[in-house]
């Protein structure tokens, strides 16, 4: 039993953080450079746990969770989540980004997140994940109307969305609880990173900003608000690591632990996101400051593989 990251994991984690800080700053989340995805691909980030035969690094979920929490801290593309899952669980190669669709009752139209330049889209279903191709246009099976897959913004300023029809041509996983848990785990990792980002932003500001001739972090009310952010982030992060290990070991209670991680991470991301704005005061409400970015990302993440109450009580 050892829940501290080993040296190799820490090195990978640190390298990721350093790279993100330089090439994928949170502050620039709404305007990512064109070649970003190619760089992420080149570093193998969408294939950390994919088998070597598929060009993957065949690492464990524990390492992957550590790295994805760092990516999440910089509001990395949502498409990394679905791409990582697709590359891990399907033998056939997905050349390029796999977008992410939110759960729907089949065969309704899909809400596709981060679809720009995506070759395919991954959908979470009860007990399975399914991957469709992305066509240029689709037929809405309910209204019988043809739709062009136009890209629209989402509340998360770094993520676009489109609509797409249910397709009969798809691949899906069967008789394996792990693929859906994998997606939930990675989404939880993103949310943990998001909670961390908000905490750090708030603490940095509370150390520097002065009112009444003192840093505002001197005042207990704001200090405790920051402390609570630290508590939420720490709890979610520990549970994330534990859940990743449970998934690696295919433990009987892995589904519970991953759901618990997602629940706590989502709450941490939302609550920290809100508290971060309050700590920032006026500047926190502006578009030019970055305080709103983690909050808006948190609002998106809560709809990606949410933790069902049944899973938590099972």
């Amino acid at each position: 039993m050892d829940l501290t990251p080993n040296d190799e994991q820490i090195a990978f984690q640190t390298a990721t953080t350093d790279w993100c800080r330089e090439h994928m700053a949170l502050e620039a989340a709404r305007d990512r450079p064109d070649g970003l995805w190619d760089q992420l691909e080149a570093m193998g980030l969408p294939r950390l746990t994919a088998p070597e035969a598929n060009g993957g690094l065949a690492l464990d979920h524990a390492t992957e969770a550590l790295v994805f929490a760092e990516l999440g801290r910089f509001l990395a593309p949502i498409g990394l989540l679905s791409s990582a899952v697709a590359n891990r669980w399907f033998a056939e190669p997905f050349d390029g980004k796999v977008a992410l669709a939110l759960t729907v009752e089949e065969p309704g139209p899909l809400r596709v997140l981060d679809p720009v330049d995506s070759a395919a889209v991954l959908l979470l279903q009860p007990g399975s994940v399914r991957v469709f191709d992305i066509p240029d246009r689709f037929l809405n099976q309910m209204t019988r109307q043809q739709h062009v897959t136009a890209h629209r913004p989402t509340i998360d300023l770094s993520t676009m969305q489109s609509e797409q029809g249910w397709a009969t041509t798809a691949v899906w996983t069967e008789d394996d609880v792990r693929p859906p848990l994998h997606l939930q785990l990675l989404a939880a990792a993103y949310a943990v990173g998001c909670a961390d980002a908000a905490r750090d932003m708030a603490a940095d500001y509370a150390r520097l900003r002065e009112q009444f001739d003192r840093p505002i972090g001197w005042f207990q009310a704001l200090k405790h608000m920051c402390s609570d952010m630290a508590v939420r982030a720490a709890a979610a992060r520990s549970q994330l690591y534990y859940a990743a290990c449970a998934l690696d070991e295919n433990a009987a209670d892995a589904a519970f632990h991953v759901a618990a991680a997602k629940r706590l991470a989502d709450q941490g991301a939302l609550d920290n996101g809100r508290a971060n704005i309050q700590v920032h005061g006026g500047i926190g409400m502006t578009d030019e400051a970055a305080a709103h970015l983690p909050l808006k990302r948190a609002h998106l993440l809560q709809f990606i593989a949410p933790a069902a109450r049944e899973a938590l009580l099972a």
Partner: protein
Amino acid sequence: MDIGFSPEETHFREECRDWLHAHVPAEKRPLDAADAIGFDKAWQRRLFDAGWAGINWPTDYGGRGLSIVQQVIWLEEYAAAHAPWIGANFVGVNHGGPTLILNASEEQKAYHLPRILKGEAIWCQGFSEPGAGSDLAGIKTRGRIEGDELVINGSKIWTSFAHVADWQELVLRTEEGSLRHKGLSWAICDMHAPGITVRPIRKMSGQTEFAEVFYDDVRIPLTNVVGGLGNGWKVAMSTLSFERGTGFIADQVKQSHEIEELIAAARANGMIKDDRIAGHLAQLRAEVAAVRAMTYRNISEVVRTGQPGPEASVIRLFTSELGQRLERMAVLLMGEAIIDFAYGDDDAVGDYLRGFAATIAGGTAQIQRDIIGERLLGLPKSR
């Protein structure tokens, strides 16, 4: 103690309702200040012409001189009729005007008050500065006296409607080297004066409503000072205590409508079947009732004694946080549709994002709790 209204008041309520029913504009108020300014001015003029602007303002300056209870009745009917927010006229009608009524000279009042009520002059507020937010007494913008003029240098921030305003209620340091609350003055600043630069700031909801204002040797006549040189803190506080007293009635009335709409929405989409949602809605409805009861109580206090009771700060805090709880519930009831929010959308998500201001602007919730602890409970001052 009674909660009934007199026959005269009931008659007044019917009058309000009838007029609003006939005149509330069908189109929605634009959210961006620049787009909304024409709408806001026209609507204010319409209110004035029909005698609904300044219900409890003195008749000498274009008001109706009616009671605060009638003002409340008007606001209740206004909200019930879904009449538009008064927008750009907010500062003039709710802050600047009342401050002038309490503190200004006859000449100042005679010039400005009717223009405010008619929607002819748009006002903005120049209190906060980049370095003086919660710490309002940390104001650094200074006004040097040269002959019969003030020469202003410095900057203000979070000034709503600055880029469309004609006048500003400006608090600045007129005594060189003075500290904290001393040596400040409250002046009427011409927003069209040379040397003023306005940098609009976009909110995280996408609207551009407030701005940063820079003053570079801006000259205004000394006669624009209100309440006397060096009395700025006192004059500003008279506005703020008004805000804390009855200035937020409109918000509270709005909440009474919002909770009913939320309950209706939850019934419509079936989410009320979830005990947690139903429990939250029940709780929120009780809290909205309490805010209304507290507000009525506070108004009764004003009617009796001429000023709001010490619990006004409690109402202020409770209302601002309750507003955020209502906005969060509205967003929760939207479900996944919250994802579709795009900058400038005038929906529940926009309200939620703009609503963060409630516990920040005009004194953060932390400052409000300090005030309650110190003034109501007599705990020692921390700052």
